[in-house]
């Protein structure tokens, strides 16, 4: 066998082949892993929210999900109301408490009245209201 040191085509070929295989294998493992770690797809993401108002008694609320965000449909005294459940303070989901007709945030105690206005707590913005349509007794949020 002849000596071959610097520019040896076979050795170069082997190095490139092994390197190429290594990169391909790393990509074959890395791609599924990285994409697994991404945000999961919510299948309900693009579906409009529909609530039959006949099912809601006055002062009763229903929770729904719109584009990955929780929203609250409330049958208020002055007709229905839809607000984002996201507290404008630090983004926790507020809950509707029918007993005293208030939205309360479980994280830092912000309180909002039945129309989403601030009552008290570490917050100076109202709950975001969300536009909706009512047709034949069904409330639709898109």
């Amino acid at each position: 066998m002849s000596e071959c040191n610097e520019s040896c085509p076979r050795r170069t070929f082997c190095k490139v082949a092994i390197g190429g295989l290594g990169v391909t294998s790393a990509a074959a493992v890395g791609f599924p892993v990285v994409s697994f770690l991404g945000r999961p797809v919510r299948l309900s993401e693009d579906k409009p929210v529909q609530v039959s108002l006949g099912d809601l008694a006055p002062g009763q609320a229903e929770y729904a999900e719109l584009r990955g965000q929780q929203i609250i449909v409330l049958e208020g005294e002055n007709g229905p109301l839809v607000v984002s459940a996201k507290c404008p303070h630090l983004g926790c989901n507020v809950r509707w408490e029918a007993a005293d007709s208030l939205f309360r945030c479980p994280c830092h105690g912000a309180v909002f009245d039945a129309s989403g206005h601030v009552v008290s707590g570490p917050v100076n913005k109202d709950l975001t209201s969300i536009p909706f349509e009512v047709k034949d007794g069904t409330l639709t949020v898109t």
Partner: protein
Amino acid sequence: MSRLFEMTRGWLDERFNFTPLLEKNVTKKDVPRTLSWAGCFGGLALLTFLVQVFTGMLLLMYYKATPDGAWDSVTFIKSNVSMGWLVQRIHAVGANLMIALVLMHMARIAYYKIYRKPRELHWVSGVVLAALTMGLAFTGYLLPWTQLSYWGAKVGTEIPGGVPLIGEAIVVWIRRGETISGETLGFFFSLHIWVIPAIISAFMAMHFAMIRATGISRPL
């Protein structure tokens, strides 16, 4: 690139004499000339174990070990998490593969009588490892909470009922009650992700340390 490797190695050598360690254990480690491909089964079983650990970690990000959540969360992994179906399949098929490799490894050791002196304890620790592998597979089988896994666990946990006198007590102990329930699921889950992996890792360490000490068996 190779300069970077050299520099890194030099840096490590200055600190804990890395190169001799690498040569002794990896790059210049002698294996018998006569070693065939069949000698790889044990190492491949370890590789599948590591794949199981890694894919298991990924599945654990979404899996919920409750009767209400288990099936839904596995379905969520398979249909909503990107590449989740692949990770879940690799974990399920990998379990079968690991058992197959362990059995092939044992068959070779038994056929060539490698378990004889001075390697008796290699065999004993290996049998424990095989039993623990079966335990991992059995406890993992219940976790998707499907009809198949439910009845699999029911039939499997009935087997120790044949033991005289204490059989029934063992069955109740394993099931955490009379029947397969949410408590069984939680118990199997903790066995599957912590208890058995911790014990199996300790036995693997012993198994490998003993192989290092005696070296790989050579034919006469």
